[in-house]
């Protein structure tokens, strides 16, 4: 008898603060399995391996069958959390002589309101002034050398950092985006004099002009490098051991890490550009939701990922999440391209409190998972959003399908106390807390669309994550949204998203030139160089040449503007016609974004600023299966309970449905509560939920005539 064909299973694994979410995909049968395990913050690799073990077991493989794993994609918050917690180890900064105070000066702006400059206290700089050293040598903006690199000074600086025991260094010289030579010579000197140093060069992290932002991005990259490398290498080693022997030269089981730009990169490469992982988790969620919504027939989608402490929202058009290079993580700016995710301080643990003015506020402070909401009974002392939900009956009195009971009485006591301070009934207080939270989310969703000149009412909303769907009916009402989509397994959308993304690397080169003075062959040459770099990386990742694809873009502006607009460069050779086409696209995109352009005005010259190439290595995406529609009859109720939707209407007897019982085609009319493992959809009166053939719950307002 022939040995059975070995199975090929690809795994997406998203490590969050509380849970590690796992999705496994059988590349041959198309079977998709999801699960969760507790995260292990002490050593995240333990939770990671436990998750792999568990999901393989669910796929019917006996324990230890790591050889069935064809690839693993991982979303991590190691770098994110390090930055959010501000746990940056001692760093050194090497810059051009004369610019040693760059971090003290920053961009001179004071956050928030007028008058704050009088009392604002600047946060600590990422590198204190005495750990900044200048080195002579100067380039101009074309990359030409104005003064030679001061090798002696470089050596002195390298020895000094070694003597001080500073082993993590960022290097940013003026105009290094145009010519990396001085930075590379600095690295060579460091390699000789201070071989233990971990070094990030600005010309490798971000070849883009604006020295302060590039320096900060480089320093953030250096800051997270030691910890992220150790983490990734540790997991890679454990995974290789688990997955067993692989053919020589294959480099072991393919292990990818999710990047903020919506692509993945192999573990071997990602340790050299750790800053690209800072929004790993939210990016995977946005991508997963985007794919699910697209398959369900929605092209313009807002995603809303609600967790324990916050909710992440993003805009997706035609399956592509919008990207930004103006992002930041905690106090640290990052100019690396990342999916434009806006975080609102509205999650299950967000605290309701009274301001000194006597106003009821909700968030952004959170009780987190520990001590957590009052109803967790773990020592929480403040009313949270989860307490309001459980008090009103919107969520069941237990978590995760019954594994963890909730203390409803504790929630009630807290809400009654808060309500008496406000002179409200407890129901009005609890619905009020949720209403304020819904408006906070609604305002964030409005702002992400207005920023791009879009109208929020043209979008379908996709809600997922543990708390993402709880207020969806209120969001429909407040924002005037046509539709909300709740994907199946809403707690695992980020892990699912990890299975849907290609390998992607971004390369950028600032090349400032007026369009009139631009030589097509120069542009072609720069793009070719960037494409070569991308090709080399894709080949290293194991993609044969015929699978490589490249996206070429350019950032243009009108001469005199201080901001750029990104447009695609047509495929094929770069000739004058191609340049003209880019300019045409620029005018059109400028109008789309800002409402005007200067296409017909010869006095307004177009200027090219950055050239970009993304190298993409495609992977096989799991197919979202279509299920036959049933006859639409509602299934048996799992139970009924008293739920309060409107304080004025009090508690109403409400059916509770189990989501897994809802066949495609089922239509449910509110009021109803739809529960599943780790997530709940409260369907308010006046709303209708329909299960589509991809098992999504699609919520709309009940049509007038059918009420």
């Amino acid at each position, binding site marked *: 008898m022939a040995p059975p064909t070995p199975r090929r299973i690809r795994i997406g694994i998203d490590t969050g603060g509380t849970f590690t979410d796992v999705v496994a995909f059988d590349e041959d049968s198309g079977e998709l399995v999801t699960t969760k395990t507790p995260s292990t913050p002490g050593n995240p690799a333990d939770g990671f391996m436990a998750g792999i073990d568990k999901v393989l077991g669910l796929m019917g493989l006996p324990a230890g069958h790591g050889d069935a794993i064809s690839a693993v994609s991982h979303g991590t918050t190691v770098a994110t959390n390090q930055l959010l917690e501000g746990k940056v180890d001692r760093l050194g900064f090497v810059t051009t002589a004369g610019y040693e105070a760059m971090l003290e000066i920053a961009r001179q702006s004071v956050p928030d309101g007028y008058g704050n400059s009088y009392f*604002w206290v600047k946060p600590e700089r990422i590198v204190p002034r005495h750990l900044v050293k200048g080195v002579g040598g100067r380039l101009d903006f074309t990359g030409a050398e104005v003064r030679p690199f001061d090798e002696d000074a470089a050596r002195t600086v390298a020895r000094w950092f070694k003597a001080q025991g500073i082993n993590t260094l960022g290097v940013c010289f003026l105009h290094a985006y145009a010519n990396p030579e001085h930075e590379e010579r600095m690295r060579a000197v460091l390699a000789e004099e201070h071989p233990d140093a971990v070094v990030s060069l600005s010309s490798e992290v971000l070849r883009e002009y604006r020295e302060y932002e590039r320096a900060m991005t480089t320093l953030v990259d250096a800051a997270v490098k030691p910890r992220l490398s150790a983490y990734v290498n540790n997991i890679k080693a454990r995974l290789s051991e688990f997955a067993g022997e692989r053919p020589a030269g294959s480099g072991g089981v393919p292990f990818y890490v999710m990047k903020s730009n919506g692509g993945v990169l192999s573990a071997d490469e990602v340790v050299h550009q750790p800053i690209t992982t800072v929004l790993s988790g939210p990016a995977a969620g946005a991508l997963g939701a985007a794919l699910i919504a697209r398959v369900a027939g929605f092209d313009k989608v807002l995603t809303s990922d609600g967790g324990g402490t916050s909710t992440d929202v993003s805009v997706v058009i035609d399956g592509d999440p919008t990207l930004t290079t103006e992002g930041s993580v905690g106090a640290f700016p990052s100019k690396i391209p990342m999916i434009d995710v806006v975080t609102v301080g509205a999650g299950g643990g967000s605290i309701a409190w009274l301001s000194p003015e*006597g106003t009821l506020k909700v968030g952004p402070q959170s009780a987190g998972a520990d001590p957590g909401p009052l109803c967790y009974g773990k020592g929480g002392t403040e009313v949270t959003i989860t307490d309001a939900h459980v008090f009103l009956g919107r969520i069941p009195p237990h978590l995760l399908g019954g594994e963890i009971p909730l203390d409803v009485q504790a929630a009630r006591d807290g809400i009654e106390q808060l309500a008496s301070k406000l002179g409200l009934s407890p129901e009005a207080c609890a619905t009020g807390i949720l209403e304020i939270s819904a408006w906070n989310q609604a305002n964030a969703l409005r702002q992400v669309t207005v920023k791009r000149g879009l109208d929020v009412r043209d979008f379908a909303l996709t809600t997922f994550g543990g708390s993402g769907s709880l207020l969806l009916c209120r969001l429909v009402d407040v924002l005037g949204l046509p539709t909300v989509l709740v994907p199946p397994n809403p707690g695992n959308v980020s892990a699912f998203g990890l299975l849907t993304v290609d390998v992607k690397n971004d390369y950028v080169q600032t090349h400032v030139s007026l369009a009139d003075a631009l030589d097509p062959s120069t542009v072609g040459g720069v793009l070719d160089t960037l494409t070569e770099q991308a090709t080399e990386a894709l080949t290293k990742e194991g993609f044969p040449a015929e699978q490589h694809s490249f996206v070429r873009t350019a950032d243009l502006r009108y001469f005199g503007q201080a*901001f750029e607009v990104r447009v695609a460069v047509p495929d094929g050779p770069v000739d004058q016609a191609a340049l003209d086409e880019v300019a045409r696209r620029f005018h059109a995109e400028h109008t789309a974004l800002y409402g005007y352009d200067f296409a017909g005005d010869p006095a307004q010259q177009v200027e090219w600023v950055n050239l970009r190439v993304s190298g993409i290595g495609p992977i096989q995406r799991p197919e979202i299966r279509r299920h036959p529609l049933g006859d639409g009859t509602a299934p048996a109720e799992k139970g009924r309970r008293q739920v309060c939707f409107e304080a004025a209407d009090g508690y109403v007897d409400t059916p509770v449905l189990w989501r897994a019982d809802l066949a495609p085609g089922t239509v449910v009319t509110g009021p109803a509560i739809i529960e599943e493992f780790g997530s709940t959809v409260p369907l308010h009166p006046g709303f209708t939920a329909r299960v589509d053939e991809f098992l999504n719950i699609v919520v709309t307002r009940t049509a007038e005539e059918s009420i």
Partner: protein
Amino acid sequence: MCTSSTGVVVTPPTATEADTASRRAPTQFPFGHLTADAGASADPVLVEIVQGSLASVEMEVETAIGRTSRSPMIRDAHDFRAGIHDRLLRKLTGRSYSALVHPVARDFPIEEMREGDVFFHNDVYRSEGGIGHLPDLCVTVPVFAGPEGERRVVAFVQAFGHHDDIGGAVPGSMPSNATSVFEEGLMVPPIRLWDAGVPNRAALSIMTRNSRMPESLAADLDAECSACLMGARRLGELFDRYGVETVESCFDAIIERTTTTYRREILSKIPVGEWVWEDYAEHDGVDEPMLHTQRITLTRTAADDPDGERLILDFGGTSPQAKGPINHCGDYSDGVFLKKWLAPILRNLADTPERMAELDVNEGIVPLIEMRFPPPGTLLTPVFPAPTNARTFVILRLLGVLAGVVAKAVDGRMPADQETIRYTGVYGEDLEGRPYLMREVLGGGSGGRYYADGEDTIHVVPDSRNLPTEFTEARFPFRVESLGLAMDSGGAGQFRGGLGYEKHIRMLKDAHFMSIADRSILACWGVKGGLAGRPFQVTIDPGGPDEREVDALADAEPIKAGEVVRIRTTGGGGWGNPLDRDPELVVRDVVWRKVSPEAALADYGVVLTGSLEDDSLGHDAAATQAERASRPEPTEAFFDRGPGYAHLAAGAAAADVDWL
């Protein structure tokens, strides 16, 4: 000077009736409430939702303007603001300053406004004090709500932005030697720019015809009008959702809570009594440098005062109006613009910097402040057509005058002085022969606080940014050889003032340098024993054969290719006696190149040991103690204005008002 003399005097002046006495500025629109109980019965949940929505609409309007406007001053320097006002013209939002709706409501009765109307004005003397100079173009849109047939004005969305050119004697419409407003550009009193949705083409073409940048003027106006109309629709939806009365009750609650909060957390910090202080602009662009006095007499009334518990700010003693453009029209509509402009300074009295940042300044502060103005003809009460384009010399300084007079009342628990706005630039032809103008607003150091040192190189306008070297070198024919901090520029103190910039620009081609700056003779003052910072200073060819100083008001100083321009901006004033500063912090400041070793000894009495070069810098504690003990008692003046004061004050070391 009051041009709207038909206004109703709310409270008769309480001072003795004499021609020289200060008086309140009459207003047609006294402060009041929309609901009988001033919002006391508003639903606390709705109050929070309404307040969050107002903040969101304001941000959406500003985002839309930022997206679609075209002037660099608006787009890059963020010199624009939106505001939301109710039908009593009260400002509801509080992150920033804004213009007033009063001039629009004065000239166009609210009952006669129609949906789709857009009002426009930039005329300083017809703005009720809400517009300071002509380049600030202001658009006002009424918000309508209510059932069909009964729709009426319920609020206003307003925005103003600093446009790059509105005509006048010079490009940019800010002639530093103007002697009348007619040299400063086109004045437009309140007009109905859109009539029920129809733009007035004639008005638009007159305005664009008068600008050197007609296309971007038109685009900026479009941006402001469409953004405000969008905001008005959004706000209208809020009224339609909850009902006009309910939302107006929330407005009352929002404003009443600000009043209560300021009474509880701010007013309570100032004892009952009266204090006086003054500060100065040093030149006006026309006359030789002199002291242009701005004076405030601050009275804090008792809780049982018949006219209420409040602060009275009397500007009597302020200098006559200047010939040059540093005047500000303040004495209109009961001074409500200046009240909201100055009130943010009072936030420094809150308990912690975090709490200061939380406090909004909306119309709720108005009942707590009474303003009294000197008779027409002063810096704050200029008579038409006195020029005003550089009025920041006065209104920014007034922030400091208020900080200083309050400091006298609260034993110095206020920040020392800062100066963060000035224009510097170079212009000429670039290497390809194209004309260029590089103009930038460089900030300065903030003053020391009783809880922290001042911060280096910051700016008072939120989001205003400096220009990256990698941007300017690609655009203009110069090299920024260094961009650093001006060592020793921060005033010495127990809490040191923040440092100003030291920027070295080497020209690659012959060019001209320009500068519009105050505080080049006088310095940012220190308080409670803290010393003044260093003033603004521009030097061409420092250390070279042609070294020369440039005046702070310079239109066209020639610079040769190869020469370096060194710009040093103001350091903030120090707070508290520098001899009380922790010597370890002085050592750190020397290591950080913020204080020179010489100043460590001279200003702080710290005897250093070791050397900077081999990282062995430290201090000798015993010698430092002896050194400090040997110093004479410090002067008893509560403020230090720096050596420049004597230069303009006939040798006096301090002003009469500088003593407690």
